[in-house]
């Protein structure tokens, strides 16, 4: 059996057999990434502690810091990726997934009391994103990028302090970071987030369901129409669910989704990705 594992963070990923069990070793020697990888592993370790129905987290067995390297040992999970799952999932499986994701997000919301996030957290973040974007050589002389930055500045300038749940989140809850094993869904690649809020996880999920980000990143042939039908259904379910229950969702989802896409844009280099991001951001800006 061929085992395909791929990292997105630049970390080295190795699958190792020890005592008849497979483990994933995720490691980095990048001095700028060492502390972050350790923090992410600790976040994953904490997330694995509570038992949740259908949502699982691979157990972290060790976080080793040796010789300028951080190495994280965790369980290997036999699984399908999101395309393999959605290409074969019947309507019941899609329904189970939506229920499980909502249950997971509700658990995060329960663990995250409402707190005031000063608008400066967002405006400072945008100032940083703007600087990095304008320094990105792919955007040299690109008037459209400058217009996007100006329009986004106006959106964030108009933002007030946000009352949102703060406490816990996955940090990068896209379909690329979910492994599918029957009706169990394994969350991997936890990340630190600029606001540790479940709302940011909803934003990342809808980055895929509403904006098809992971589908864009998938390089193999697949039934894109089937995926878009499934994603559209999931997106409507998530949006309806949270819009009908939480005022903070209706009020702050859009500016935080805009920020999410701007944070991706700042590092973009491939022309197809840049075109996609510009289009998505311009469509979002029309909603303000």
């Amino acid at each position, binding site marked *: 059996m061929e085992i395909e594992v791929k990292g997105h963070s630049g970390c080295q990923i190795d699958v190792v057999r020890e005592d008849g069990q497979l483990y994933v070793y995720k490691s980095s020697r990048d001095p700028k990434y060492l502390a972050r990888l350790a923090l992410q592993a600790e976040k994953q370790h904490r997330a694995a502690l509570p038992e949740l129905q259908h949502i699982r987290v691979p157990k972290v067995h060790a976080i080793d810091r040796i010789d300028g390297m951080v190495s994280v040992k965790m369980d290997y999970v036999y699984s399908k990726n999101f395309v393999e799952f959605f290409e074969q999932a*019947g309507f*019941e499986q899609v329904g189970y997934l939506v229920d499980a994701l909502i249950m997971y997000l509700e658990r995060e919301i329960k663990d995250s009391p409402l707190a005031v996030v000063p608008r400066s957290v967002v405006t400072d973040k945008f100032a940083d994103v703007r600087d990095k974007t304008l320094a990105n050589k792919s955007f040299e002389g690109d008037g459209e990028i400058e217009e996007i930055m100006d329009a986004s500045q106006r959106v964030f300038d108009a933002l007030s302090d946000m009352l949102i749940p703060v406490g816990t989140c996955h940090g990068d809850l896209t379909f690329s970071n979910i492994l599918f094993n029957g009706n169990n869904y394994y969350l991997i690649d936890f990340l630190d987030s600029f606001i540790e809020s479940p709302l940011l996880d909803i934003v990342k999920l809808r980055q895929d369901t509403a904006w098809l980000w992971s589908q864009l990143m998938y390089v193999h042939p697949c039934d894109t*129409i*089937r995926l878009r039908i*499934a994603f559209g259904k999931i997106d409507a379910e998530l949006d309806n669910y949270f819009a009908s229950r939480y005022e903070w969702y209706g009020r702050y989802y859009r500016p935080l989704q805009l920020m999410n896409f701007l944070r991706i844009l700042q590092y973009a280099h491939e022309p197809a990705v840049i075109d996609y991001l510009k289009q998505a951001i311009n469509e979002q800006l029309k909603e303000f």
Partner: protein
Amino acid sequence: MSNSKNFSLIVPAASDKGTEAGTMPHIFSTGRDGVLMCVKSVLGLNLEAFDSIYFTILRKHAEAFDTDSLLKLQFRRLGLGNVNIVILDEPTATQAETIVRTIEKEEITGSIFVKDADCFFRAEVFPENGVAVYPLEHLELVDPRHKSYVAVDDMQHVTNIIEKRVVSHLFNAGGYCFEDVAKFLKAYDKYASLGHVYLSHLIYAMLLDGDLFRPIQVKEYNDWNIQ
């Protein structure tokens, strides 16, 4: 069974795919019994259940091969009175589009049964959502790559339909029933812009929206593309 709702049979025979310039699509050729393939494709159905039957063909095939006249002769010979020939001026991009054009042109309402013109099966059909299915293991010759597959649960509900991926021993035998043509059109309008939308995509979308589909178990399935 009550047949108070309008129930129409649509046979899309307007495909231009795989037809070399100047040649007649093979579904208009006859077997040894003298019946056109596309006409024979519906003879295993309980045709009395339908208020109207529509064969949709292309104008260029009608002009080049008199396919409309051929069909009329066949209907007269077989004693089929409620048959209409729908002629499309231009080829469509998908089978789903052919059906939609037929519905729009003929202002069809109620329920529709769509029957592929290149295969035969026997089945009793009713005006309710369903997909014709046949077990793969009953075929001697099969090209599994060119079929869609249908998963059915213990309650005899269709739970999944997938193009070209063998997820079930049941494959779609080339028959689809939509109880409410308005729901079918709504699904088509929503997804047509995505690209080459198959009927299986639309049924999958309707399943996700909570519509129930039953498997229609067919007999004597015969795929003329394989022979």
